[in-house]
Structures are given as structure tokens and as C-alpha cells.
């Protein structure tokens, strides 16, 4: 009897253990299976080679160059400390730098951890020769972003850097992961998904000490695609050099289709160098003055005033006004830059000589609303939509704007100021280029863009708008612009060229007392059959007819000589 009870007791115990087994293996099985996979499977990222960036003719601007990096594989090293000390001695760098990088980059015992990159080939060979002393050290070719033109293209290409926490949060659903290098500005950022390709990876099985046992699966990285820009590397470099570090911006564009041939902002920075140094600089080199900077346009804007007055039939191309050097509005007086007065001027002379009095008359006749309307028609006051970040929309004032924003009434004096491009009006150099293009092509507002081709696919879908301006009026304005460089008294005679006929408009925009004015020189060439339009802008650079005109002339002569 007692034996039977004992047997039953043991039977119950075995059943309980069986139930525990069932619970652990069947009910909790998936949970523990996951834990066991996490124990033994690690993922190793393999970066995809980033795509190159070329100019319109296929000239290399940005590429990923091979360089040498030194890595340490913790599981292979016998004495990590000693090996780093030897390495520091060979490279002539401090050991603490290597240690810092080791701490920062180490992920797993089997994963090569980068200690330093960009070492010379000679140093790489030296390390390879003493590898037997440092079994954990590994020299590998690493990809470094190589910006061939240093500062010349910085504001178009942008630069790359390690992904930030905010960007990571945003981009995680698109396959971005921690420590990824991503485009931080310009095309590098705009086209990041195209350029970066798809990272590959390895699933590695590791043992209890984290050592690699075998590769379970391998996914080949997919290289990024190349990008072709509309820019011309030669022209870009030429203009960048002509700026010689002066503060300002220049845009050269095909007026027919909006392809930007050159977009320079100065001063610039080396996208392959230290970005934090650039950020700290007083010159704000990271600012893309061509699209982010909004400045008073000054006399360049007179073209818009002229078109507004012409289209509303307030003036005709042969309408004349007498300029005696000043213009009276109520009790205020607005001076022409020529205090002696220009005398009797018609439209073309008014443009050629940049007569303020003429455009005050014309502007007041057209009215502020019409000028605002035409400014809008020419694309001012709104973003152009170019493939660059931080574009400014500028500002086109109006009566409503002043009432709402400034809580003030719009005076006739405001209209007069507006007519000659002063006052609250702000434009970016790119917007002015686009406006000039619409005059040059007699009425089509193009979409400025810098992407020409992605891999083998031409970019398309750039919108153009018809401004519906009258060709006759545009021609009248063009005639005046031609006289700017070719009339003996024109404001831009310094841009006169024997090689190509240049039509332009100078501008010397007042900023505030005691600060040199902004100089603008905007136009197109050749005068008869515009192939290129341009803006050269110097921030606090003085008269538009001086240095800006000379830069424009030199650049255009370079361009037309090259494309003869």
C-alpha cells in the first residue's frame, strides 16, 4: 500500500516536471528562441559606395576616393593597449587619440573598429610590415569623400557627415542607421537617397565570447547612383576664382531652360575639411548667398517697374521725363544718383543711365499694386524651387503687407522707393537671375535647376510659366540694357567686351548709412540672341558697375571663348 502511494507520488512529480517542460519549450518556446538568436547572431553593416557627382560635360566634381584606414579587431589582438602604443609610434600620432577613437567606434569583438583614417600609403605599408607584432591591427581601404574643386562647388554639392539624432529619428523608416554618413547640405543632402545606394550587411554567428564563428548570410551593398549637374565646372571655377574670396554670389543660367551653369557663393569652405571650423567662422561661409541671402536689389528692379508701367500702358517706350536730379513727392525729395540731372530721358536712356527720377515717375503712374503684381509675375517674393536647401523667398512689399506687418499706411514715397528697388524689397541673386531670364527670352519664367541627370535618366518636369509680357516692351527694355555696357555714358561700360555683346543692368543698392552699398550686375549675352543670363552680386561691394561688372565680363568672355 505504502509503495503504491510512493509510486503515485513519484508519478505526480514526473508529470509536474513534464508540464514544466511543456511550459518552457512549447508555450515560452518562441520567446526563448528569440533570446537564443539574440545571443548568437550579430549584424555587421557594409557601407555601399556613394555615387559620384559630375558636371554637365561629365567632369568629375565629387567622388569617393580610396584611402587607407587603420582598424583593430579586438578578438584578434593579443594586447590591445600595447598594439595601440606601437601603432601610435609608427603613425606619429598620440596614443590617446587612438584610444578615444577605439572607445567611440568599438561595437563588437569581431567587428573591425576604426582607429584612424586617411593615412598615407607609406604609413600603410609600414604598418603592414610590422603586422606580426600587432596581430589585431588591420589596414583597410576606406572610402573618403573627395571634393575635387575644394571650395568652388561647396554650396551646390554640400558635404556629408555622420547622421544626427534628429535626422536618424526622421530617416529610420528609410533604412538609415546610426553612424551612417549622410548628406548635410546641397546636392549631397537633396539627393542623398540616390547617392548613398543601399548598404549591405552580414549576419554573423558569434560564440559566447562574441567571436565570429561563421558568416550566416551576406547581402551585397548596392552602389549609389551618379548625379550629373547642369553646372559647368570650368565656368564655376572661373567665377569662383574671380570672386577671390569677396563676399557675394553669382549665378549663370541658360535663359531658355533654366539650367544653372554656375552658382557661386563666396566666401566658401572646403567640404572635405573641417565643417565645424566653417561654422565658427565670422564670414559665414556655409551661407549660400545665391539662394539663402535676400538683399535689396536696387536699380536692377527698375526692369520690373518699366515692364509694369509699359504693360499697363502708363508709359510707352518713347515716353520721356525730365530729370533735374531730384524727385519731389509731397514734402519729401528723392535724389537721382546724378545730382545734376540726366535731362530729358526716354526708357532706354533711363535704363542705360539708371535714372531714378524716370522710374519714380513711371512707378507712380503704374502704382504700387501693379509693381507688386509684376514683381510676382517675374518670380520675386517666392522660392524658385531650386534643388537646394534653405532657399529664401525674399520679400515683395505691398500696401496690404505694410498695413498688416508694419501697421503703417503706404505713402507715395514708398511707391517711389519701391520703383527703384529700395525700401522693404528683398530678393535673392537667383531670383534676379530668373527675372533677367524672363526678359532675355521675352516672357518665359523658367524653373532654375541644377540636376541634369541621375544615372542614365534625364531629369524632367521643370515647370515654366508664361508671364504674358509683350515682346515689344521686352525688346525696349533689352535695348536699354544693351546701352548699359555699350553707350558711352552707360553705368556698366566696364563690362563692355570686344568678344561678346553684353546687355545688363547695374545696381548699387543702399543698405544703411555708413555701410557700403550692395553691388549688382545682372544681364544676359549675347545681346541679340541671349544664350546665358547672369547675376553677379557683391555684398557691401560698392558700385555694381565696378567690380561686379568686371567679374561678369571676364566670366562671359571665358564662356564665349570656350564655346566658340
Amino acid at each position, binding site marked *: 500500500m505504502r509503495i503504491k502511494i510512493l509510486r503515485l507520488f513519484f508519478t505526480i512529480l514526473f508529470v509536474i516536471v513534464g508540464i514544466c*517542460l511543456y511550459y518552457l519549450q512549447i508555450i515560452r518556446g518562441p520567446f526563448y528562441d528569440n533570446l537564443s538568436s539574440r545571443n*548568437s547572431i550579430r549584424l555587421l553593416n557594409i557601407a555601399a559606395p556613394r555615387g559620384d557627382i559630375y558636371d554637365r560635360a561629365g567632369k568629375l566634381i565629387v567622388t569617393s576616393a580610396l584611402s587607407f584606414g587603420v582598424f583593430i579587431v579586438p578578438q584578434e589582438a593579443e594586447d590591445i593597449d600595447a598594439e595601440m602604443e606601437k601603432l601610435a609610434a609608427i603613425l606619429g600620432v598620440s596614443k590617446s587619440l587612438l584610444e578615444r577613437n577605439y572607445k567611440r567606434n568599438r561595437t563588437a569583438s569581431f567587428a573591425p573598429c576604426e582607429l584612424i583614417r586617411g593615412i598615407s600609403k607609406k604609413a600603410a605599408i609600414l604598418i603592414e610590415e610590422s603586422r606580426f607584432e600587432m596581430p589585431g591591427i588591420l589596414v583597410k581601404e576606406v572610402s573618403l569623400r573627395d571634393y575635387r574643386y575644394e571650395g568652388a562647388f561647396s554650396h551646390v554639392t554640400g558635404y556629408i557627415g555622420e547622421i544626427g539624432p534628429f535626422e536618424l529619428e526622421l530617416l529610420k523608416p528609410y533604412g538609415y542607421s546610426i553612424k551612417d554618413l549622410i548628406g548635410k547640405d546641397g546636392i549631397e543632402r537633396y539627393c542623398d537617397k540616390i547617392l548613398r545606394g543601399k548598404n549591405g550587411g552580414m549576419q554573423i554567428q*558569434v560564440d559566447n565570447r562574441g567571436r565570429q564563428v561563421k558568416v550566416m548570410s551576406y547581402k551585397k551593398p548596392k552602389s549609389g547612383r551618379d548625379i550629373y549637374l547642369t553646372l559647368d565646372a570650368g565656368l564655376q571655377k572661373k567665377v569662383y576664382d574671380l570672386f577671390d574670396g569677396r563676399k557675394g554670389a553669382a549665378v549663370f543660367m541658360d535663359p531658355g531652360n533654366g539650367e544653372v551653369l554656375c552658382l557661386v557663393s563666396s566666401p566658401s569652405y572646403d567640404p572635405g575639411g573641417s565643417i565645424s571650423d566653417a561654422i565658427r567662422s565670422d564670414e559665414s561661409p556655409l551661407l549660400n548667398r545665391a539662394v539663402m541671402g535676400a538683399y535689396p536689389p536696387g536699380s536692377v528692379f527698375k526692369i520690373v517697374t518699366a515692364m509694369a508701367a509699359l504693360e499697363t500702358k502708363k508709359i510707352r517706350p518713347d515716353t520721356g521725363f525730365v530729370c533735374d536730379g531730384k524727385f519731389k513727392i509731397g514734402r519729401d525729395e528723392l535724389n537721382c544718383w546724378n545730382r545734376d540731372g540726366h535731362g530729358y530721358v526716354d526708357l532706354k536712356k533711363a535704363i542705360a543711365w539708371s535714372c531714378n527720377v524716370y522710374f519714380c515717375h513711371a512707378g507712380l503712374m503704374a502704382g504700387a499694386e501693379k509693381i507688386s503684381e509684376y514683381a510676382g509675375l517675374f518670380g520675386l517674393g517666392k522660392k524658385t524651387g531650386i534643388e537646394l536647401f534653405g532657399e529664401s523667398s525674399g520679400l515683395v512689399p505691398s500696401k496690404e503687407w505694410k498695413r498688416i506687418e508694419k501697421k503703417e499706411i503706404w505713402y507715395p514715397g514708398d511707391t517711389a522707393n519701391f520703383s527703384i528697388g529700395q525700401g522693404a524689397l528683398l530678393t535673392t541673386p537667383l531670383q534676379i537671375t530668373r527675372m533677367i531670364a524672363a526678359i532675355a527670352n521675352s516672357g518665359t519664367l523658367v524653373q532654375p535647376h541644377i540636376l541634369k541627370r541621375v544615372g542614365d535618366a534625364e531629369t524632367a518636369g521643370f515647370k515654366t510659366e508664361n508671364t504674358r509680357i509683350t515682346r515689344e516692351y521686352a525688346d525696349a527694355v533689352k535695348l536699354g540694357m544693351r546701352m548699359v555696357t555699350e553707350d558711352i555714358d552707360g553705368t556698366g561700360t566696364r563690362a563692355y567686351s570686344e568678344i561678346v555683346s553684353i546687355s545688363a543692368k547695374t545696381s548699387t543698392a543702399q543698405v544703411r548709412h555708413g555701410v557700403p552699398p550692395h553691388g549688382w550686375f545682372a544681364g544676359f549675352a549675347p545681346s541679340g540672341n541671349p544664350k546665358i543670363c547672369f547675376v553677379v552680386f557683391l555684398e557691401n561691394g560698392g558700385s555694381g558697375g565696378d567690380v561686379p561688372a568686371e567679374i561678369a565680363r571676364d566670366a562671359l568672355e571665358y564662356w564665349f571663348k570656350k564655346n566658340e
Partner: protein
Amino acid sequence: MLKVHKYKDFDWVLVAVAAAIFIAGLLFLFSATYLRNIDFVIRQVAWFLAGSLFFIAMININYRKIVSLGYVFYSLALVSLFFVFLFGSKRMGAQRWLELGFFNFQPSEFAKLFITLALIQYLTEHKAEKGMRHITAAFFFMLAPFILILLQPDLGTALMLVPVFFTLLYVWGAKLKHLLFIIAGGVALSPLSWFLLKDYQKERLMVFMNPNIDPLGAGYTVIQSRIAIGSGGVAGKGWLSGTQNQLNFLAERHTDFIFSVAGEEWGFAGAIVLLALYYVLVRRAFEIAGKTDDPCGVLAACGMAVIIGIQVLVNISMTMGFMPVVGLPLPLVSYGGSSLLVTMIALGILESIALHR
């Protein structure tokens, strides 16, 4: 004819089940060790052959003779335990082994069996009077080796003696109120034992309560073992394919934790069959006890059943993390000569009881 007659009551099921368990155990042991050293399997087979000789010797000796040598074994056990205490080699913080030249002898494994045999002898000799006097004597009889084993420290073996003691007294016919009295006394004294426990044993108990106290230290073995068994799922990861096993996440996986290899690679299907085989083994032992009229045979058969059964239950429960890690091997499967030898002797005694009823 005589020979056939002599072995007609031989329990073939018991032997077949034991052989099946041992063969499965060799497969687990191979999987757990072949990457490091094939010697483990070879040595285990050698021990099995040695054990077979003992087994054959046992079935041909009347178990009564073996039981009547109980006090001799008891003395041997005490002496060897005392030797361990004086000269034993230390492994993993415990002093359990005697180095005897060609092999390392683990007296506490033998003590399980020898002390049980001695207790059986004592109870058989005093089967007439089942009062408190003999129960108390039996208690002190057990106390001396219990303390010696506990001091090694070998918590598992020491605690093994407790169910053996109670089972044998129960089968012997002790009054339930006497047993309850002893149990009450034991429970009352148990807080004292906390002071007898070594630090690592206290730690193990604490870690059993919550393995995450020390996931990389004392808790590591249990956590990884639990993960291994759990991740085996229904069908297991396949022989030689357990990641926990082959990638070294399991500690002591060829000895006390070998069940985690079985659970991981053979899954629930394999593990439950193994458990069932053990159940059949223990059940056969009780059936042998049931068929025997001799009180000595009943006590001996039940003693062997408890020695084997408790080790199986405690070992499997501890590898699953449902019991504290106490260091008991899985009979016939865990690597180790002493344990294998003792189990095979126990099986031999069971067959002897079946044959000499």
C-alpha cells in the same frame, strides 16, 4: 535449463530502458564535447564497461548479502568523505574529489548509495519494533555523513539523503505522526542551516529566486540553460546544431547541465521521451519492490528508486530553472565515472532483488 530458470525473473524492460537512456546520453555528450575533445565520450564508454562488470556482479549476488555489508560501506563512505575533507582536491570552489592516480574519485556519489544501504540494513535489522527510538537512531545515523557532505560542500548530495531517509522510514512502516514530528523538527532547525551554507551556495539560492541578480555570474548558467531548453521548441534545433550548446553559451553542459543540450537540440519531443524513459525506470523499480515479499528487498528497491528518481527530477528541474542549482548529475547521462558506476550498481541491485525474491 537451470540457467534460464535462474534468470526468468530478470527485468529486461529495466535494462532496455537504462540502455536507451545511456545511448541517448552518449549522443548528448558527443554533441556537447566533440568540438573540444572526443575523450569525454571514450571515457564515458569505458566507465560504462566497468559499470557493466559491477552490474553483472550485482545480479549474481543476493542483494541481502549486499545489504548486510551496509555498515561496512557506511564506514568506507565516512572514511573517504573524511579523506576528502583532509586531502581532497578543490574544483570550482568545492572539495569533492579524491585524486587516485588514474582517476578522480568522487566519494559523495558513492556515499549516496552506501549510506542508503546502511540505512536499509539498520531498518531491516529493527523491523520488529517501529518506535521512535529507532527512528531517532536512524536520524543520527544519517546526520554524520550529511554534515560531512554538506561541508565539502555538496548541497545536492546532502539533500538527496533527506528524501531517502523519509522514503525508507515510510516504506519501513514508521508511524506518520513520528515522521511528521521529525519533519517539524527539521523545519524548525532549517534556519540554522543558512549558517552552514557556503557563500556560493547562498548566492545560488538567491540567484534561483531571481536569476537576473547576477546575469553574468552565478545566474548565467541557469539563464543560458533555460534559454537553451526553451529555444528547443517542439522539435529542437537538431543534433549538433544547438546554438547555445555549440557556441559555448552553456556552462557545465557535459556534466550537471547536459539536459539543456538534450532540450535544445532534440526539443520537447526528445526531452519528454527522455523524461518518460526515466519514469519507466523508476516505475519498474517500484514494481520490483511491489512484487517482493521480503521487507529488506522492499526497502532496497525503494531506496534505489528514490536515489535515481530524485536525481532525475531535481536535475531536470534545476536545468530548467525551476529549482536552485544544487549540483546533482543526471543519472546515466551526465559525464562522470562515479555517478555512472553508482547508478549501474543501483540497477544491478534492483535486478538482484527481482531475481532473488
